[in-house]
């Protein structure tokens, strides 16, 4: 197989050597710590083999926070390199690798799992179900995502990272121009994670269509459930395109086919076309659930029903439909001719209409509401102006003719950071502050939360606002350096300073988690925000079967009305029945590990070893086919005991926000 062991580990760079040592020490420390505390069995039975949607959601969120750290470090390294003209901090190859991994990790391994994690925790609770439709498939989705993410992450110490941009355009990403194995990581790791995401999409479509509690019609679903539903449809529509494109890329790179190559009858722009056929819906796959989170947070803290519920639903559907027909705006400069570019300009600008409708709905929800300025609400408030800047610059970029000027400049980079950071990162922070008590039974510290908020939002604006002007002045993206004569230096320096403030905000967030785990008040009731939807009608943290008695829904904001009318809140002993729950399974984590191993061999083009690992994948599929485990029943006594424990202590609902 001709393994070049001298090229296996990346050597000769002090930054990477430091990382390798740090990774080794962390791994040794983790193993030693778990062994010392005798937590292996706990870890295995409570987390690694779990099929509980809430625990899977929490694992998604933990992974996402770790990936946020990794992607954020990449961002800081880039900002350090461009802070002064002609800096010699990173060389050009290293810079290429870093902006590539920054993009891939932030979109696919930070934004996606963060949102999918919140969906996992919240959606079954919001629709009054005891789990998702396919709990074990859900665990498999998580482990495949995790496997893909880890495979992608080790690339920078073993073998070399992909370096052709997060879009990996051909011909650059092909074997001819990128002969190393770095871009194999891109093709294989994203494929593995993508399978997991596709299954999540299927799972949530079925869950939301089939598992809603009695009385919850489609038009009585909470807005986050609606956005998750439409997002899942988009996942099922768009991810197979990426799967196929990545498979063709893998064939091109590993087996010498010519789908995207310049020679041999290939068509390099076909890659860009397929990539964005997936990539644009992907933007809405991460943006729509975020819109749902803001809808929940704004309605709760304005203490009003969401304004214009129906128009909200129709705008989501409109955005989803339009998002499938705008992909060419990412490559107007390919030169498809005026008819194509005009068509896609118009569809792109049309997306601003339903998005604008949503904006006004949020503003009207706040109008005349008794707004509580909590940390979660602050993120929602900051989202509105910041996202509008992102949206308006998006309309500028949507004009095909004008795009020739903006294309490939930092103006574009500033635009999509203004869309994705307010549109996704602010949302997941809002969601995390909002649903944290539901997940863990205590709140994140509000004072630290406000420090986190102000540092992050100010840092974000100082980092990315200058990039609009840099871009208009002609600074190109993905360039590792620039000359002093260009005059870019002051704005680049400002942007670098902003990124430090941004990082400080993230540090406060991490400290907040640590502080709250140690010191936060555990006695907070199950409904600390006086909220409106069903997830707040059960215990915090939620008992493993979610609801002792499935709630019945009569209107929008069902829990709010249950509280007002004081009905359905108590539980009589006679109402308790045995509950059927799914059993834990070792198969999902096994599949994650074996997919990771097979993927690793495939990255290094060790085909025989990959084929042997592939047998392990098939073995897992076969074992699953003959798995007739029917789950288990929770006894009435146990339910009685668990329900009494939280319902007795509760008493009146305390107000913890004021």
């Amino acid at each position, binding site marked *: 197989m001709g393994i070049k062991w001298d090229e296996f580990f990346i050597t000769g760079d002090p930054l990477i050597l430091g990382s390798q040592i740090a990774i080794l020490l962390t791994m040794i420390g983790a193993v030693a710590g778990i062994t010392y505390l005798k937590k292996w069995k706990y870890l295995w039975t409570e987390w690694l083999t779990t099929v509980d949607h809430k625990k899977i959601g929490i694992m998604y969120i933990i992974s996402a926070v770790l990936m946020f750290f990794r992607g954020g470090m990449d961002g800081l390294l880039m900002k350090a390199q461009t802070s002064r003209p002609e800096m010699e901090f990173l060389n050009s190859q290293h810079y290429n690798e870093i902006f590539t991994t920054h993009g891939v990790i932030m979109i696919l391994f930070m934004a996606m799992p963060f949102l999918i994690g919140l969906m996992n925790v919240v959606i079954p609770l919001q629709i009054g179900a005891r789990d998702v439709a396919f709990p074990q498939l859900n665990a498999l989705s998580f482990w495949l995502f995790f496997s893909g993410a880890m495979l992608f992450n080790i690339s920078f110490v073993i073998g070399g990272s992909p370096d052709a941009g997060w879009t990996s355009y051909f011909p650059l990403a092909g074997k001819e121009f990128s002969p190393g194995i770095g871009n194999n990581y891109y093709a294989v790791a994203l494929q593995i994670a993508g399978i997991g995401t596709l299954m999540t999409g299927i799972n949530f479509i079925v869950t939301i269509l089939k598992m809603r509690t009695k009385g919850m019609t489609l038009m009585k679903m909470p807005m986050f459930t609606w956005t998750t539903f439409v997002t899942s449809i988009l996942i099922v*529509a768009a991810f197979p*395109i990426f799967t196929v494109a990545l498979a063709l890329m893998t064939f091109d790179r590993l087996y010498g086919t010519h789908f995207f190559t310049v020679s041999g009858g290939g*068509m390099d*722009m*076909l890659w860009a*076309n*397929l990539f964005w*056929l997936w990539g644009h819906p992907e933007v809405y796959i991460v943006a729509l659930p975020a819109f749902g989170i803001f809808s929940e947070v704004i309605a709760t803290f304005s203490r009003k029903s969401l304004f214009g519920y129906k128009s909200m639903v129709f705008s989501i559907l409109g955005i989803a439909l339009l998002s*499938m*027909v705008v*992909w*060419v705006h990412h490559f107007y400069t*390919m*030169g*498809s*001719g*005026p*008819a*194509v*570019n005009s068509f896609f300009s118009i569809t792109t600008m049309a997306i601003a209409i339903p998005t604008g409708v949503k904006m006004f709905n949020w503003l009207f929800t706040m109008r005349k509401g008794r707004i509580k300025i909590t940390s979660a609400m602050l993120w929602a408030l900051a989202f509105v102006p910041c996202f509008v800047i992102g949206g308006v610059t998006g309309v500028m970029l949507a004009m095909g003719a004008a795009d020739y000027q903006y294309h490939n400049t930092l103006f574009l980079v500033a635009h999509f950071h203004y869309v994705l950071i307010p549109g996704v990162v602010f949302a997941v922070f809002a969601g995390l502050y909002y649903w944290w008590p539901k997940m863990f039974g205590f709140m994140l510290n509000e004072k630290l939360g406000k420090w986190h908020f102000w540092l992050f939002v100010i840092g974000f604006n100082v980092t990315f606002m200058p990039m609009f002007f840099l871009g208009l002045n002609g600074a190109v993206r993905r360039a590792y350096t620039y000359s002093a004569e260009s005059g870019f230096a002051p704005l680049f320096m400002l942007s670098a300073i902003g990124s430090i403030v941004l990082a400080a905000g993230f540090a406060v967030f991490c400290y907040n988690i640590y502080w709250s785990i140690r010191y936060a008040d555990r006695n907070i009731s199950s409904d600390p925000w006086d909220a409106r939807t069903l997830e707040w009608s059960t215990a915090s943290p939620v008992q493993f079967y979610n609801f002792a008695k499935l709630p019945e829904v009569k209107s929008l904001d069902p829990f709010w009305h249950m509280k007002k009318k004081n009905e359905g809140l108590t539980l009589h002993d006679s109402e308790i029945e045995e509950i059927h729950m799914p059993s834990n399974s070792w198969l999902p984590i096994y599949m994650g590990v074996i997919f990771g191993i097979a993927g690793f061999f495939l990255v290094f083009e060790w085909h025989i070893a990959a084929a042997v690992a592939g047998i392990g994948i098939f073995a897992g599929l076969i074992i699953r086919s003959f798995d*007739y485990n*029917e*789950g288990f029943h929770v006894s009435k006594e146990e339910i009685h005991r668990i329900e009494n424990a939280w319902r007795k202590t509760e008493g009146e609902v305390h107000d913890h926000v004021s």
Partner: protein
Amino acid sequence: MEHHQSKSFPISHVIGFVVSLVLTFAAAGIALKTNLSFKVIMWIIGSLAVIQAGMQLFMFMHLREGEHGKTNLINMIYAVFMVIVIVVGSIWVLTSGHASH
């Protein structure tokens, strides 16, 4: 979960699987082993692909299970929309203007 014990051998799935393999190898054989012109090969393998997709709808995708007529209709409209966007859209984008040169 109650009805995992299937009543009969899934014969239509096996037939569908075998026919899919045959159609795929036929396409590969025509593309690699014959001396037909490029255009003829494209038409033949394109037709085989459409036949295979239609066959799979019947053999695998429960299209004949009639009680969900409305669901099937929505699914078919959705599928047609996706095909138009992906296939027709890609061909249009990649064969017009400068992109065709």
